[in-house]
Protein backbone atom coordinates (compact mmCIF):
# COMPACT_ATOMS: atom_id res chain seq x y z
CA UNK A 1 0.00 0.00 0.00
CA UNK A 2 1.08 3.55 -0.52
CA UNK A 3 2.35 5.62 2.35
CA UNK A 4 -0.46 8.22 2.22
CA UNK A 5 -3.03 8.08 4.94
CA UNK A 6 -5.83 5.90 3.63
CA UNK A 7 -9.29 7.43 3.32
CA UNK A 8 -10.90 4.15 4.32
CA UNK A 9 -9.35 1.65 6.59
CA UNK A 10 -10.88 -1.57 7.81
CA UNK A 11 -9.16 -2.86 10.91
CA UNK A 12 -9.69 -6.48 11.71
CA UNK A 13 -13.31 -6.29 10.63
CA UNK A 14 -15.46 -9.36 11.24
CA UNK A 15 -19.15 -9.95 10.74
CA UNK A 16 -21.14 -12.92 11.94
CA UNK A 17 -24.77 -13.52 11.03
CA UNK A 18 -27.07 -15.45 13.30
CA UNK A 19 -29.27 -17.86 11.42
CA UNK A 20 -31.53 -20.76 12.23
CA UNK A 21 -28.80 -23.26 11.50
CA UNK A 22 -26.32 -21.48 13.73
CA UNK A 23 -23.76 -18.79 13.09
CA UNK A 24 -22.50 -17.75 9.71
CA UNK A 25 -19.18 -15.99 9.52
CA UNK A 26 -19.50 -13.65 6.57
CA UNK A 27 -16.31 -11.68 7.25
CA UNK A 28 -13.32 -12.47 9.39
CA UNK A 29 -10.21 -10.48 10.21
CA UNK A 30 -10.47 -8.17 7.24
CA UNK A 31 -7.76 -5.52 7.05
CA UNK A 32 -7.98 -3.20 4.08
CA UNK A 33 -6.69 0.29 3.46
CA UNK A 34 -7.96 2.33 0.56
CA UNK A 35 -6.13 5.51 -0.40
CA UNK A 36 -7.83 8.63 -1.60
CA UNK A 37 -8.24 8.55 -5.36
CA UNK A 38 -7.87 4.79 -5.63
CA UNK A 39 -10.25 2.79 -7.69
CA UNK A 40 -10.44 -0.25 -5.54
CA UNK A 41 -11.86 -3.48 -6.89
CA UNK A 42 -13.36 -6.20 -4.75
CA UNK A 43 -13.76 -9.60 -6.31
CA UNK A 44 -14.66 -13.00 -4.99
CA UNK A 45 -16.93 -15.90 -5.56
CA UNK A 46 -20.64 -15.61 -4.99
CA UNK A 47 -21.20 -15.53 -1.22
CA UNK A 48 -17.61 -14.58 -0.45
CA UNK A 49 -18.72 -11.57 1.56
CA UNK A 50 -18.23 -8.73 -0.93
CA UNK A 51 -21.60 -7.07 -0.34
CA UNK A 52 -21.22 -7.54 3.38
CA UNK A 53 -17.82 -5.88 3.18
CA UNK A 54 -19.03 -2.70 1.52
CA UNK A 55 -22.09 -2.63 3.75
CA UNK A 56 -19.73 -2.69 6.68
CA UNK A 57 -17.86 0.31 5.32
CA UNK A 58 -20.82 2.64 5.73
CA UNK A 59 -22.06 0.69 8.73
CA UNK A 60 -25.27 -0.44 7.09
CA UNK A 61 -24.12 -3.68 8.58
CA UNK A 62 -22.44 -3.09 11.92
CA UNK A 63 -19.28 -5.22 12.07
CA UNK A 64 -19.32 -7.74 14.88
CA UNK A 65 -15.65 -7.02 15.52
CA UNK A 66 -13.09 -4.50 14.40
CA UNK A 67 -13.42 -0.90 13.36
CA UNK A 68 -13.94 1.16 10.23
CA UNK A 69 -11.91 4.32 9.84
CA UNK A 70 -13.14 6.90 7.36
CA UNK A 71 -11.07 10.02 6.78
CA UNK A 72 -9.16 9.39 9.99
CA UNK A 73 -12.24 8.92 12.14
CA UNK A 74 -13.63 5.72 13.57
CA UNK A 75 -17.14 5.34 12.21
CA UNK A 76 -18.01 2.64 14.72
CA UNK A 77 -17.43 5.08 17.58
CA UNK A 78 -19.40 7.98 16.14
CA UNK A 79 -22.64 9.49 17.34
CA UNK A 80 -25.56 8.98 14.98
CA UNK A 81 -25.32 12.58 13.76
CA UNK A 82 -21.62 12.29 13.02
CA UNK A 83 -22.21 9.00 11.28
CA UNK A 84 -24.86 10.60 9.10
CA UNK A 85 -22.48 13.40 8.16
CA UNK A 86 -19.86 10.84 7.15
CA UNK A 87 -22.36 8.75 5.26
CA UNK A 88 -23.25 11.73 3.08
CA UNK A 89 -19.72 11.53 1.72
CA UNK A 90 -19.97 7.84 0.91
CA UNK A 91 -22.35 6.98 -1.89
CA UNK A 92 -23.51 3.48 -2.56
CA UNK A 93 -25.01 1.68 -5.51
CA UNK A 94 -26.87 -1.38 -4.31
CA UNK A 95 -26.92 -4.78 -5.91
CA UNK A 96 -30.73 -4.64 -5.82
CA UNK A 97 -30.87 -0.93 -6.81
CA UNK A 98 -33.20 0.00 -3.91
CA UNK A 99 -34.95 2.76 -5.77
CA UNK A 100 -37.92 4.50 -4.22
CA UNK A 101 -40.84 2.93 -6.04
CA UNK A 102 -43.19 5.82 -5.38
CA UNK A 103 -40.92 8.46 -6.86
CA UNK A 104 -40.20 9.23 -10.46
CA UNK A 105 -36.70 8.72 -11.78
CA UNK A 106 -35.97 12.41 -11.58
CA UNK A 107 -37.12 12.57 -7.97
CA UNK A 108 -35.12 9.47 -7.14
CA UNK A 109 -31.99 11.21 -8.31
CA UNK A 110 -32.96 14.35 -6.42
CA UNK A 111 -33.38 12.31 -3.26
CA UNK A 112 -29.82 12.40 -1.86
CA UNK A 113 -29.65 16.10 -2.65
CA UNK A 114 -32.94 16.68 -0.86
CA UNK A 115 -31.43 14.93 2.14
CA UNK A 116 -28.32 17.04 1.98
CA UNK A 117 -30.48 20.16 1.77
CA UNK A 118 -29.67 21.19 -1.78
CA UNK A 119 -32.12 23.71 -3.17
CA UNK A 120 -34.90 22.11 -5.15
CA UNK A 121 -34.19 23.82 -8.49
CA UNK A 122 -30.47 23.17 -8.25
CA UNK A 123 -31.15 19.54 -7.41
CA UNK A 124 -33.47 19.23 -10.36
CA UNK A 125 -30.97 20.75 -12.73
CA UNK A 126 -28.22 18.45 -11.55
CA UNK A 127 -30.56 15.46 -11.74
CA UNK A 128 -31.39 16.28 -15.34
CA UNK A 129 -27.70 16.45 -16.15
CA UNK A 130 -27.14 13.07 -14.56
CA UNK A 131 -30.11 11.60 -16.40
CA UNK A 132 -28.51 12.75 -19.60
CA UNK A 133 -25.18 11.23 -18.62
CA UNK A 134 -26.78 7.83 -18.06
CA UNK A 135 -28.83 8.24 -21.22
CA UNK A 136 -32.27 8.31 -19.68
CA UNK A 137 -33.52 11.87 -20.16
CA UNK A 138 -36.74 10.55 -21.59
CA UNK A 139 -37.45 8.56 -18.43
CA UNK A 140 -37.38 11.56 -16.10
CA UNK A 141 -41.04 11.22 -15.23
CA UNK A 142 -41.29 7.43 -15.39
CA UNK A 143 -41.55 5.39 -12.21
CA UNK A 144 -39.02 2.63 -11.48
CA UNK A 145 -41.67 -0.02 -12.11
CA UNK A 146 -41.77 1.16 -15.70
CA UNK A 147 -38.06 0.65 -16.28
CA UNK A 148 -36.03 -2.26 -17.56
CA UNK A 149 -33.42 -3.80 -15.27
CA UNK A 150 -30.55 -1.90 -16.82
CA UNK A 151 -32.46 1.35 -16.74
CA UNK A 152 -33.10 0.92 -13.03
CA UNK A 153 -29.43 0.32 -12.50
CA UNK A 154 -28.54 3.46 -14.40
CA UNK A 155 -30.92 5.51 -12.27
CA UNK A 156 -29.24 4.04 -9.21
CA UNK A 157 -25.88 5.07 -10.60
CA UNK A 158 -27.08 8.57 -11.29
CA UNK A 159 -28.51 8.78 -7.79
CA UNK A 160 -25.23 7.71 -6.25
CA UNK A 161 -23.35 10.37 -8.17
CA UNK A 162 -25.83 13.10 -7.36
CA UNK A 163 -24.43 14.03 -3.98
CA UNK A 164 -20.84 14.54 -5.20
CA UNK A 165 -19.52 11.96 -2.77
CA UNK A 166 -15.91 11.50 -1.72
CA UNK A 167 -16.27 7.76 -1.96
CA UNK A 168 -18.42 5.80 -4.37
CA UNK A 169 -19.20 2.19 -3.59
CA UNK A 170 -20.62 0.10 -6.42
CA UNK A 171 -22.09 -3.29 -5.67
CA UNK A 172 -22.20 -4.87 -9.12
CA UNK A 173 -23.21 -1.58 -10.59
CA UNK A 174 -22.96 -2.69 -14.18
CA UNK A 175 -24.06 -6.31 -14.02
CA UNK A 176 -27.37 -5.57 -15.69
CA UNK A 177 -25.88 -3.43 -18.40
CA UNK A 178 -24.87 -4.18 -21.94
CA UNK A 179 -21.18 -3.83 -22.78
CA UNK A 180 -21.52 -0.41 -24.37
CA UNK A 181 -23.40 1.07 -21.47
CA UNK A 182 -21.03 -0.64 -19.06
CA UNK A 183 -18.10 0.93 -20.78
CA UNK A 184 -19.64 4.36 -20.74
CA UNK A 185 -20.45 4.08 -17.03
CA UNK A 186 -16.95 2.90 -16.26
CA UNK A 187 -15.53 5.74 -18.33
CA UNK A 188 -17.70 8.08 -16.32
CA UNK A 189 -16.41 6.74 -13.02
CA UNK A 190 -12.85 6.88 -14.28
CA UNK A 191 -13.41 10.41 -15.45
CA UNK A 192 -14.81 11.56 -12.13
CA UNK A 193 -11.92 9.81 -10.47
CA UNK A 194 -9.42 11.66 -12.66
CA UNK A 195 -11.05 15.04 -12.39
CA UNK A 196 -12.34 15.11 -8.85
CA UNK A 197 -10.20 12.49 -7.21
CA UNK A 198 -13.21 10.50 -6.07
CA UNK A 199 -12.36 7.19 -4.45
CA UNK A 200 -14.29 4.25 -5.81
CA UNK A 201 -14.87 0.79 -4.44
CA UNK A 202 -16.14 -1.55 -7.08
CA UNK A 203 -17.55 -5.01 -6.62
CA UNK A 204 -17.75 -6.84 -9.87
CA UNK A 205 -17.65 -10.25 -11.42
CA UNK A 206 -16.14 -9.03 -14.64
CA UNK A 207 -12.39 -9.22 -14.50
CA UNK A 208 -12.25 -6.93 -17.50
CA UNK A 209 -13.78 -4.18 -15.39
CA UNK A 210 -11.08 -4.60 -12.78
CA UNK A 211 -8.33 -4.58 -15.39
CA UNK A 212 -9.82 -1.63 -17.10
CA UNK A 213 -10.31 0.86 -14.34
CA UNK A 214 -9.12 -0.40 -10.98
CA UNK A 215 -5.81 0.54 -9.46
CA UNK A 216 -6.04 -1.90 -6.58
CA UNK A 217 -7.92 -5.04 -5.96
CA UNK A 218 -8.81 -7.24 -3.01
CA UNK A 219 -9.78 -10.83 -3.47
CA UNK A 220 -12.22 -12.16 -0.90
CA UNK A 221 -12.52 -15.82 -0.21
CA UNK A 222 -14.90 -17.20 2.37
CA UNK A 223 -15.00 -13.93 4.26
CA UNK A 224 -11.22 -13.46 4.39
CA UNK A 225 -8.94 -11.35 2.26
CA UNK A 226 -7.06 -13.84 0.11
CA UNK A 227 -4.99 -11.29 -1.79
CA UNK A 228 -4.79 -7.55 -1.89
CA UNK A 229 -2.61 -5.19 -3.88
CA UNK A 230 -2.10 -3.48 -7.22
CA UNK A 231 -4.18 -4.94 -10.02
CA UNK A 232 -1.17 -5.64 -12.25
CA UNK A 233 0.53 -7.61 -9.53
CA UNK A 234 -2.41 -9.65 -8.49
CA UNK A 235 -3.69 -10.36 -11.98
CA UNK A 236 -0.40 -11.23 -13.57
CA UNK A 237 0.67 -13.32 -10.69
CA UNK A 238 -2.16 -14.67 -8.60
CA UNK A 239 -0.72 -16.33 -5.53
CA UNK A 240 -3.70 -18.14 -4.13
CA UNK A 241 -6.06 -20.70 -5.47
CA UNK A 242 -8.97 -18.30 -4.92
CA UNK A 243 -7.37 -15.60 -7.03
CA UNK A 244 -6.40 -17.98 -9.80
CA UNK A 245 -9.92 -19.32 -9.97
CA UNK A 246 -11.27 -15.82 -10.48
CA UNK A 247 -8.70 -14.49 -12.88
CA UNK A 248 -8.47 -17.67 -14.90
CA UNK A 249 -11.77 -19.43 -14.37
CA UNK A 250 -10.82 -22.10 -16.92
CA UNK A 251 -7.64 -22.91 -15.16
CA UNK A 252 -4.24 -21.21 -15.16
CA UNK A 253 -2.61 -20.72 -18.52
CA UNK A 254 -0.39 -23.75 -18.72
CA UNK A 255 2.42 -21.63 -20.03
CA UNK A 256 2.78 -20.07 -16.61
CA UNK A 257 4.16 -23.38 -15.63
CA UNK A 258 6.36 -23.67 -18.72
CA UNK A 259 7.72 -20.23 -19.45
CA UNK A 260 10.12 -18.68 -17.05
CA UNK A 261 9.35 -15.17 -18.16
CA UNK A 262 6.06 -13.58 -18.96
CA UNK A 263 5.56 -10.17 -20.50
CA UNK A 264 2.42 -8.08 -20.47
CA UNK A 265 2.04 -5.88 -23.50
CA UNK A 266 -0.34 -3.00 -23.37
CA UNK A 267 -1.47 -1.35 -26.58
CA UNK A 268 -1.96 2.30 -25.91
CA UNK A 269 -3.61 3.34 -29.11
CA UNK A 270 -1.17 2.25 -31.79
CA UNK A 271 -2.47 0.65 -34.93
CA UNK A 272 -3.61 -2.81 -34.04
CA UNK A 273 -3.12 -4.21 -37.48
CA UNK A 274 0.56 -3.81 -37.09
CA UNK A 275 1.03 -7.55 -36.74
CA UNK A 276 3.30 -7.38 -33.74
CA UNK A 277 3.77 -11.03 -32.93
CA UNK A 278 4.25 -12.02 -36.54
CA UNK A 279 6.77 -9.25 -37.05
CA UNK A 280 8.54 -10.38 -33.94
CA UNK A 281 8.88 -13.83 -35.42
CA UNK A 282 9.98 -12.63 -38.82
CA UNK A 283 12.17 -9.76 -37.73
CA UNK A 284 13.83 -11.44 -34.74
CA UNK A 285 13.13 -15.07 -35.51
CA UNK A 286 11.68 -15.49 -32.04
CA UNK A 287 8.55 -17.56 -31.44
CA UNK A 288 6.58 -16.18 -28.53
CA UNK A 289 3.42 -17.69 -27.16
CA UNK A 290 0.23 -15.71 -26.75
CA UNK A 291 -1.06 -16.74 -23.35
CA UNK A 292 -4.11 -14.61 -23.56
CA UNK A 293 -5.23 -11.50 -25.29
CA UNK A 294 -7.94 -8.96 -25.06
CA UNK A 295 -7.53 -6.36 -27.68
CA UNK A 296 -10.05 -4.07 -29.25
CA UNK A 297 -9.94 -1.29 -31.74
CA UNK A 298 -11.27 2.16 -31.17
CA UNK A 299 -11.32 4.48 -34.09
CA UNK A 300 -8.52 2.63 -35.79
CA UNK A 301 -6.37 2.51 -32.69
CA UNK A 302 -5.55 -0.58 -30.71
CA UNK A 303 -6.21 -0.81 -27.01
CA UNK A 304 -5.94 -3.73 -24.67
CA UNK A 305 -3.41 -6.09 -23.24
CA UNK A 306 -1.73 -9.29 -24.26
CA UNK A 307 0.20 -11.74 -22.13
CA UNK A 308 3.21 -13.22 -23.89
CA UNK A 309 5.26 -16.17 -22.74
CA UNK A 310 8.90 -15.66 -23.72
CA UNK A 311 11.05 -18.49 -25.04
CA UNK A 312 13.08 -20.29 -22.41
CA UNK A 313 16.32 -19.33 -24.11
CA UNK A 314 17.43 -16.17 -22.27
CA UNK A 315 18.97 -14.52 -25.35
CA UNK A 316 15.91 -15.01 -27.50
CA UNK A 317 13.78 -13.73 -24.68
CA UNK A 318 15.89 -10.64 -24.27
CA UNK A 319 15.77 -10.02 -28.01
CA UNK A 320 12.02 -10.28 -28.01
CA UNK A 321 11.60 -7.90 -25.10
CA UNK A 322 13.85 -5.39 -26.70
CA UNK A 323 11.97 -5.62 -29.99
CA UNK A 324 8.60 -5.16 -28.35
CA UNK A 325 9.75 -2.22 -26.31
CA UNK A 326 10.91 -0.47 -29.45
CA UNK A 327 7.39 -0.42 -30.87
CA UNK A 328 5.41 2.78 -30.88
CA UNK A 329 2.34 3.06 -28.65
CA UNK A 330 3.11 -0.13 -26.88
CA UNK A 331 4.31 -0.50 -23.32
CA UNK A 332 5.65 -3.74 -22.09
CA UNK A 333 6.48 -4.86 -18.63
CA UNK A 334 7.78 -8.06 -17.34
CA UNK A 335 5.56 -9.82 -14.92
CA UNK A 336 6.98 -11.74 -12.05
CA UNK A 337 6.09 -15.29 -11.65
CA UNK A 338 6.89 -17.36 -8.63
CA UNK A 339 6.70 -21.12 -8.51
CA UNK A 340 4.44 -21.72 -5.56
Amino acid at each position, binding site marked *: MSSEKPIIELRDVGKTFQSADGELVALEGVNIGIDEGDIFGVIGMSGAGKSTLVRCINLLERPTTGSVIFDGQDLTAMTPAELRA*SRREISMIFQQF*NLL*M*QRTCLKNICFPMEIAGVKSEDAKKRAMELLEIVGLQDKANAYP*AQLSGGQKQRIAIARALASDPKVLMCDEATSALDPTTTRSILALIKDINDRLGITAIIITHEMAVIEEICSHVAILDGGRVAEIGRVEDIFSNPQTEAARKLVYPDGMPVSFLKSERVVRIAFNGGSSYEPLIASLAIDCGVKVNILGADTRNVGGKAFGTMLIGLPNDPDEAEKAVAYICRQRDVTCEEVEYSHD
Partner: protein
Amino acid sequence: MTEFFQSELWQEAVKIFEAELISDIWQTIYSTVLSTLFAYIIGLPLGVLLVAGEEDGVMPIPRWLMNALNVVINILRSVPFLILMIIALPLSRFIVGSGIGTPAMIPPLIIAAFPFIARLVESSLRETDRGVIEAAQSMGATPMQIIRKVMLPEAMPSLISGAALAFATIMGYGAMAGIIGGRGLGFLAINYGLYRKIWIVKWAAVILLVVLVQIFQSAGTKLAVKSDKRITQITKRRKTR
Protein backbone atom coordinates in the same frame (compact mmCIF):
# COMPACT_ATOMS: atom_id res chain seq x y z
CA MET B 1 -98.66 4.20 -3.62
CA THR B 2 -100.57 7.40 -3.04
CA GLU B 3 -101.95 5.65 -0.05
CA PHE B 4 -98.47 5.21 1.28
CA PHE B 5 -97.65 8.86 0.85
CA GLN B 6 -100.77 9.79 2.73
CA SER B 7 -100.11 7.34 5.52
CA GLU B 8 -99.41 8.70 8.95
CA LEU B 9 -96.00 7.03 8.99
CA TRP B 10 -94.94 8.83 5.86
CA GLN B 11 -96.26 12.12 7.12
CA GLU B 12 -94.36 11.70 10.30
CA ALA B 13 -91.20 10.67 8.50
CA VAL B 14 -91.41 13.74 6.31
CA LYS B 15 -91.80 15.85 9.40
CA ILE B 16 -88.68 14.33 10.87
CA PHE B 17 -86.73 14.67 7.65
CA GLU B 18 -87.66 18.30 7.34
CA ALA B 19 -86.68 19.02 10.88
CA GLU B 20 -83.52 17.00 11.23
CA LEU B 21 -82.19 15.26 8.19
CA ILE B 22 -79.92 17.92 6.76
CA SER B 23 -78.60 18.78 10.17
CA ASP B 24 -77.99 15.12 10.97
CA ILE B 25 -76.15 14.47 7.73
CA TRP B 26 -74.02 17.46 8.40
CA GLN B 27 -73.31 16.41 11.97
CA THR B 28 -72.32 12.94 10.87
CA ILE B 29 -69.98 14.27 8.26
CA TYR B 30 -68.31 16.91 10.32
CA SER B 31 -67.92 14.82 13.44
CA THR B 32 -66.50 11.89 11.45
CA VAL B 33 -64.21 13.98 9.30
CA LEU B 34 -62.91 16.07 12.17
CA SER B 35 -62.42 13.05 14.39
CA THR B 36 -60.64 11.13 11.66
CA LEU B 37 -58.44 14.10 11.01
CA PHE B 38 -57.44 14.64 14.59
CA ALA B 39 -57.13 10.93 15.24
CA TYR B 40 -54.64 10.82 12.39
CA ILE B 41 -52.76 13.75 13.79
CA ILE B 42 -52.18 11.69 16.93
CA GLY B 43 -52.30 8.17 15.54
CA LEU B 44 -50.03 8.61 12.55
CA PRO B 45 -46.95 9.69 14.53
CA LEU B 46 -47.63 6.96 17.07
CA GLY B 47 -47.93 4.34 14.35
CA VAL B 48 -44.69 5.59 12.88
CA LEU B 49 -43.06 5.39 16.28
CA LEU B 50 -44.24 1.82 16.72
CA VAL B 51 -42.20 0.85 13.67
CA ALA B 52 -39.39 3.39 13.64
CA GLY B 53 -38.87 3.17 17.38
CA GLU B 54 -38.05 -0.51 17.41
CA GLU B 55 -34.63 -1.68 18.43
CA ASP B 56 -33.56 -1.98 14.83
CA GLY B 57 -35.86 0.74 13.50
CA VAL B 58 -34.65 4.00 12.08
CA MET B 59 -35.25 5.91 15.31
CA PRO B 60 -34.87 3.51 18.22
CA ILE B 61 -36.49 4.68 21.42
CA PRO B 62 -35.90 3.15 24.85
CA ARG B 63 -37.47 -0.23 25.21
CA TRP B 64 -39.54 0.73 28.25
CA LEU B 65 -41.01 3.67 26.36
CA MET B 66 -41.87 1.39 23.47
CA ASN B 67 -43.55 -1.04 25.83
CA ALA B 68 -45.41 1.77 27.55
CA LEU B 69 -46.63 3.05 24.21
CA ASN B 70 -47.86 -0.38 23.28
CA VAL B 71 -49.65 -0.80 26.57
CA VAL B 72 -51.35 2.59 26.37
CA ILE B 73 -52.56 1.82 22.87
CA ASN B 74 -53.80 -1.57 23.95
CA ILE B 75 -55.62 -0.06 26.92
CA LEU B 76 -57.41 2.46 24.78
CA ARG B 77 -58.17 -0.26 22.24
CA SER B 78 -59.77 -2.44 24.90
CA VAL B 79 -61.95 -0.05 26.88
CA PRO B 80 -65.47 -0.25 25.44
CA PHE B 81 -66.29 2.90 23.53
CA LEU B 82 -69.29 3.65 25.71
CA ILE B 83 -67.13 3.76 28.80
CA LEU B 84 -64.37 5.60 27.03
CA MET B 85 -66.85 8.20 25.88
CA ILE B 86 -68.11 8.82 29.38
CA ILE B 87 -64.64 8.91 30.83
CA ALA B 88 -63.60 11.37 28.18
CA LEU B 89 -66.47 13.76 28.78
CA PRO B 90 -64.52 16.02 31.15
CA LEU B 91 -62.01 16.39 28.34
CA SER B 92 -64.83 17.37 26.01
CA ARG B 93 -66.00 19.97 28.48
CA PHE B 94 -62.48 21.31 28.61
CA ILE B 95 -61.86 21.31 24.88
CA VAL B 96 -65.20 22.01 23.24
CA GLY B 97 -66.78 23.56 26.29
CA SER B 98 -69.63 21.10 26.60
CA GLY B 99 -70.23 17.54 27.65
CA ILE B 100 -73.26 17.11 25.45
CA GLY B 101 -74.11 17.16 21.81
CA THR B 102 -72.23 16.24 18.70
CA PRO B 103 -69.18 18.45 19.32
CA ALA B 104 -68.71 16.69 22.66
CA MET B 105 -68.46 13.42 20.72
CA ILE B 106 -65.34 14.48 18.94
CA PRO B 107 -62.77 14.15 21.74
CA PRO B 108 -63.98 10.67 22.74
CA LEU B 109 -64.05 9.65 19.08
CA ILE B 110 -60.49 10.83 18.68
CA ILE B 111 -59.38 8.99 21.77
CA ALA B 112 -61.07 5.82 20.62
CA ALA B 113 -59.80 6.09 17.06
CA PHE B 114 -56.18 7.14 17.33
CA PRO B 115 -54.95 3.86 18.81
CA PHE B 116 -56.76 2.01 16.07
CA ILE B 117 -55.16 4.26 13.51
CA ALA B 118 -51.76 3.83 15.12
CA ARG B 119 -52.07 0.08 14.63
CA LEU B 120 -53.24 0.47 11.05
CA VAL B 121 -50.33 2.75 10.27
CA GLU B 122 -47.94 0.40 12.01
CA SER B 123 -49.12 -2.49 9.90
CA SER B 124 -48.77 -0.46 6.69
CA LEU B 125 -45.30 0.81 7.49
CA ARG B 126 -44.00 -2.63 8.32
CA GLU B 127 -44.38 -3.45 4.66
CA THR B 128 -41.86 -0.87 3.52
CA ASP B 129 -39.01 -2.52 1.69
CA ARG B 130 -36.02 -2.70 3.99
CA GLY B 131 -33.73 -2.01 1.03
CA VAL B 132 -34.96 1.51 0.33
CA ILE B 133 -34.68 2.41 3.99
CA GLU B 134 -31.10 1.21 3.90
CA ALA B 135 -30.49 3.25 0.78
CA ALA B 136 -31.71 6.36 2.58
CA GLN B 137 -29.62 5.52 5.63
CA SER B 138 -26.57 5.10 3.46
CA MET B 139 -27.14 8.63 2.18
CA GLY B 140 -27.01 9.96 5.70
CA ALA B 141 -30.71 10.71 5.93
CA THR B 142 -31.93 11.62 9.39
CA PRO B 143 -34.59 9.42 10.97
CA MET B 144 -37.15 12.13 10.33
CA GLN B 145 -36.16 12.34 6.68
CA ILE B 146 -36.43 8.57 6.34
CA ILE B 147 -39.87 8.62 7.88
CA ARG B 148 -41.14 11.58 5.88
CA LYS B 149 -39.50 10.90 2.58
CA VAL B 150 -39.23 7.13 2.49
CA MET B 151 -41.45 5.18 4.84
CA LEU B 152 -44.61 7.24 4.53
CA PRO B 153 -44.51 7.85 0.76
CA GLU B 154 -43.56 4.26 0.00
CA ALA B 155 -46.45 2.99 2.13
CA MET B 156 -48.89 5.55 0.74
CA PRO B 157 -51.29 3.17 -1.05
CA SER B 158 -51.61 1.05 2.05
CA LEU B 159 -51.99 4.13 4.27
CA ILE B 160 -54.77 5.47 2.08
CA SER B 161 -56.77 2.28 2.12
CA GLY B 162 -56.24 2.20 5.88
CA ALA B 163 -57.69 5.69 6.11
CA ALA B 164 -60.86 4.58 4.33
CA LEU B 165 -61.15 1.74 6.83
CA ALA B 166 -60.64 4.14 9.73
CA PHE B 167 -63.21 6.56 8.39
CA ALA B 168 -65.91 3.89 8.26
CA THR B 169 -64.98 2.64 11.72
CA ILE B 170 -65.11 6.11 13.25
CA MET B 171 -68.45 6.75 11.59
CA GLY B 172 -69.61 3.51 13.23
CA TYR B 173 -68.55 4.72 16.67
CA GLY B 174 -70.33 7.97 15.97
CA ALA B 175 -73.65 6.13 15.87
CA MET B 176 -73.48 6.06 19.65
CA ALA B 177 -73.63 9.83 19.83
CA GLY B 178 -77.19 9.55 21.09
CA ILE B 179 -75.95 8.52 24.49
CA ILE B 180 -74.59 11.94 25.26
CA GLY B 181 -77.17 13.91 23.39
CA GLY B 182 -75.28 14.05 20.14
CA ARG B 183 -76.93 13.65 16.77
CA GLY B 184 -76.15 12.26 13.41
CA LEU B 185 -77.37 9.65 10.99
CA GLY B 186 -76.38 6.77 13.24
CA PHE B 187 -78.38 8.27 16.07
CA LEU B 188 -81.30 8.78 13.73
CA ALA B 189 -81.18 5.17 12.63
CA ILE B 190 -81.00 3.85 16.17
CA ASN B 191 -83.48 6.25 17.66
CA TYR B 192 -86.12 5.80 15.02
CA GLY B 193 -85.29 2.25 14.18
CA LEU B 194 -84.94 0.84 17.60
CA TYR B 195 -87.11 2.95 19.81
CA ARG B 196 -89.72 4.46 17.58
CA LYS B 197 -90.33 2.06 14.73
CA ILE B 198 -90.53 4.70 12.08
CA TRP B 199 -88.83 2.45 9.63
CA ILE B 200 -88.79 5.00 6.85
CA VAL B 201 -86.52 7.19 8.90
CA LYS B 202 -84.39 4.29 9.97
CA TRP B 203 -83.81 3.10 6.45
CA ALA B 204 -83.28 6.57 5.11
CA ALA B 205 -80.60 7.10 7.72
CA VAL B 206 -79.00 3.74 7.02
CA ILE B 207 -79.00 4.36 3.29
CA LEU B 208 -77.37 7.72 3.79
CA LEU B 209 -74.74 6.14 5.99
CA VAL B 210 -74.08 3.53 3.35
CA VAL B 211 -73.78 6.20 0.70
CA LEU B 212 -71.29 8.13 2.80
CA VAL B 213 -69.16 5.09 3.49
CA GLN B 214 -69.42 4.06 -0.13
CA ILE B 215 -68.18 7.46 -1.27
CA PHE B 216 -65.24 7.48 1.09
CA GLN B 217 -64.38 3.86 0.50
CA SER B 218 -64.34 4.09 -3.26
CA ALA B 219 -62.51 7.38 -3.18
CA GLY B 220 -60.00 5.66 -0.90
CA THR B 221 -59.61 2.64 -3.13
CA LYS B 222 -59.26 4.75 -6.25
CA LEU B 223 -56.71 6.98 -4.62
CA ALA B 224 -54.81 4.00 -3.25
CA VAL B 225 -54.63 2.40 -6.66
CA LYS B 226 -53.69 5.66 -8.27
CA SER B 227 -51.00 6.39 -5.74
CA ASP B 228 -49.50 2.95 -6.25
CA LYS B 229 -46.61 3.39 -8.61
CA ARG B 230 -45.32 -0.13 -8.11
CA ILE B 231 -48.06 -1.78 -10.13
CA THR B 232 -48.59 0.11 -13.29
CA GLN B 233 -50.74 -2.55 -14.84
CA ILE B 234 -54.06 -1.59 -13.37
CA THR B 235 -54.11 2.02 -14.34
CA LYS B 236 -52.64 1.10 -17.65
CA ARG B 237 -55.39 -1.33 -18.53
CA ARG B 238 -58.11 0.93 -17.25
CA LYS B 239 -56.88 3.68 -19.48
CA THR B 240 -56.61 1.50 -22.52
CA ARG B 241 -60.20 0.41 -22.30
